[in-house]
């Protein structure tokens, strides 16, 4: 019994770490710091997956953890780093909403997720319930990041963070097949490649990555 309690506490701790990393992402004002925080979040995610693999005795989750570790904590941040350096991007985070307000909105979203998930999953185990609430908060924070940041790189990071939330939800529910996670991971990689190519193209054409400048060039605009 005590063993189960400790497993739960640790799972909870790691999940909360992922969520905290989500808040940190919102708080950062420098692009490299955003990337580092993202790498940290992915690391925490890998830890969460590994811990779930341990307590659920589900060896395939180790693969998930490995994928998260390699792709999301290493390849993606390094690639984005490289891109930012290559393109010589302005390294400030340009916000559409002040950071204080963004944090408040984030807190409200977490409260909403808890309000929503806890009653719905009344029959599930405590571990699943908590993890689902955390995962949903991470997803909503990722979305919030996408809409409150102007720069294309930060939007990509927001998208990846959202995706981290999805994986967190997937690993904490029992019986999720591995193929889902692998396909999600690969789609992220593909998305990453595409974004990279687009960054180059946008940059070549318009000499900036601020999306607002892109709007004026839309062909269908009247």
């Amino acid at each position, binding site marked *: 019994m005590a063993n189960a309690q400790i497993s739960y506490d640790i799972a909870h701790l790691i999940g909360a770490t992922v969520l905290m990393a989500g808040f940190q992402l919102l708080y950062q004002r420098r692009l490299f710091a955003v990337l580092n925080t993202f790498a940290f979040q992915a690391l925490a995610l890998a830890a969460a997956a590994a811990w779930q693999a341990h307590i659920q005795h589900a060896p395939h989750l180790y693969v998930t953890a490995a994928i998260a570790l390699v792709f999301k904590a290493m390849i993606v941040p390094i690639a984005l780093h490289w891109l930012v350096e290559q393109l010589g991007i302005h390294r400030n985070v340009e916000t559409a909403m002040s950071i204080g307000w963004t944090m408040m909105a984030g807190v409200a979203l977490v409260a*909403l997720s808890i*309000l*929503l998930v806890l*009653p719905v999953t009344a029959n599930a185990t405590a571990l699943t319930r908590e993890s689902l609430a955390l995962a949903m908060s991470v997803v909503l924070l990722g979305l*919030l990041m*996408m809409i409150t940041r102007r720069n294309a790189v930060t939007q990509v990071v927001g998208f990846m963070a959202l995706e981290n939330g999805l994986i967190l939800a997937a690993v904490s529910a029992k019986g999720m097949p591995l193929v889902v996670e692998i396909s999600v991971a690969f789609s992220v990689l593909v998305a990453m490649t595409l974004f990279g190519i687009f960054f180059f193209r946008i940059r070549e054409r318009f000499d900036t990555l601020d*999306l607002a400048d892109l709007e004026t060039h839309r062909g269908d605009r009247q």
Partner: protein
Amino acid sequence: MLIAAALSALLALAVLGVAAGAEMWRHRLIYFCCMIASLVLLAGGIKHLGQTPGTGPAIVLPIGLPWLAAHFRLDNLSALFMVVVNLAAAATSAYGIGYCSHLPEPRRVTPFYPLFLFGMNAVLIADDAFMFLVAWEFMSLASWLLVLADHKNAENRHAAFVYLVMACFGTFCLLTCFGLMAGGEGAYSFPAMRAAKLDGVSGFLVVLLALLGAGSKAGLVPLHAWLPLAHPAAPSHVSALMSGVMTKVALYGLIRILFDLHGEVNWAWGAVMMVIGGITAVMGVLYAILQDDLKKLLAYSTVENIGVVMIGLGLAIAFKGSGEKTLAALALVAGLYHIVNHSIFKTLWFLSAGAVITATGERDLGKLGGLAKRMPWNGVAALVGALAIAALPPLNGFVSEWLIFQSLFKGPSLPHWAMKFGVPVVGAMLALAAALAAACFVRAYGIAFLGRPRSQAAAEAHQVPASMRLTVAFLAVMCVVLGAIPVTVTDALSHVVTPLTGVQFAVSADLGWPWLSPVSSTRGSYSGTVLVMTGLGLCAVTLMLARLLGTSRLRRADAWDCGHKEDIPQSQYTGQSFSQPLRRVFCASIFAARESVDMPDPGDNRPAELKVRVIDPIWVGLYATIGRAVDFIADLVNRIQYLTVRRYLLMMFTTLVLMLLVVAVRQNQ
């Protein structure tokens, strides 16, 4: 079986119509086959009406939605409407044999004409909501294509657009109506709907939606706007079908829902329908009087007649809802009788209008005149039709309007005070409409067929082909026949009415054939048969006396020239001058009709003109307002089209969070 064969034949004819090409004899052959198919369907309907306990066998075909086979059944109500539809359809098809060569582009008409007939017949025999709506749309779209037949005219394109919008609106209402009746389990077959009980709110909505859906097709004010645009735009034999028959199919839908499927409609709806019917009748005929275009005049007259039928149907609902089943049956018989009559005389008049257009190329009353002499067949037939529309005895129009009045006179026996006082008001509106309709057709017939030709085209009018003359003659004979044997008709109609009102009823019960005595043997009775016989007898006696006592010497003299020495056709009454008194009295307030004299400046030698301005209150007040509102909303929505990616994401995010909030709040309650 024969009915199924005839319907399949109509579908096949539509395909052949595409292949007809430019050879005119093929078009004629197709119209001839349509006529045969219509006659077969007509015979099927009459045969079914003849058998008293009448529900035909249900036929189930494995077509349509996968879990819902297509159900068909012919019962008394469908059989009656099948007779109505196919009598007119046989006439218009026969007319088409001669008329098709006068159309500008017969290839744009021939393929869709059988489809239109098929759609109308399929609506009548459908026994589930799905087939009903499919057939209904079939009918709408086929007639829409026929309205577009002369698509090079911008006015016709506008008419077709308005028609399409209104048809979509109507079908949408009917779809929702049937959805409500089918309930949660989706019981779309009519027997299941009959068995189902509707609760208060959905019962209310079903009646409302049925009135909107079927009413927009039938042309009830204020949903009539498309009708006077679309009906005249089609070729004349199609106009005849749309005006004389398609509006009846719409009323069939209404009767089917309100009397059969719904079953327990509140009496107050009867009051609503009567008021709508009264307004429709009066507005329709006032519009009709103002028209100079012959076909538009006829289309507005259709609106008026639909109003008259609606008064009968509304009264039947009010009686039925108050438990007066015999009176409900009487009012329903009266309404159905008027449906039958209107389908005949309106078809007759539209076909005559088609003949006039073929002969002269004009449909403006101001350019016609004197046609009775040059087109004697059409002249006589149109006169009979005009007398029937004006509800003069012994013709059929009189019988049905008289029956409606008889049932209106029993209105005070309703228990509700609103109805006791309201029914006479509707009766007054009906009387006004009937009188104005007579004036309207005196004007239409007098200006178009009598007097002297007002244009070169009218002076050179020629006879139309035999098939076009014979059909109008046939319809004129039908007007007389249906007026002369009213008891036979009402007996057939009471078979139809019995299952709808749940009471055995015969209008001729008290005095027996050939007397109609709807209320009691002493309160009012009428016999068209006796009247016709007496009239013929008196004519014979008069002729004999004239022969015996008068002189047989032929004497020729000038007609009275109203004091005008010169032979100027312009000195006659015109359509405008005929309607001027009525326009001044009735239309000054409703249509804001104003006259002004456009006087040229001194030195300018153009003639002075009398200008008339008429504003359609419903188009300006309702349709134009809706159009502006749609434009306004479209402008607002248009702004959303050019946002940044971030804003789109923000919208999605906000929607998501709002929905999550709703879920959170609801589950915490």
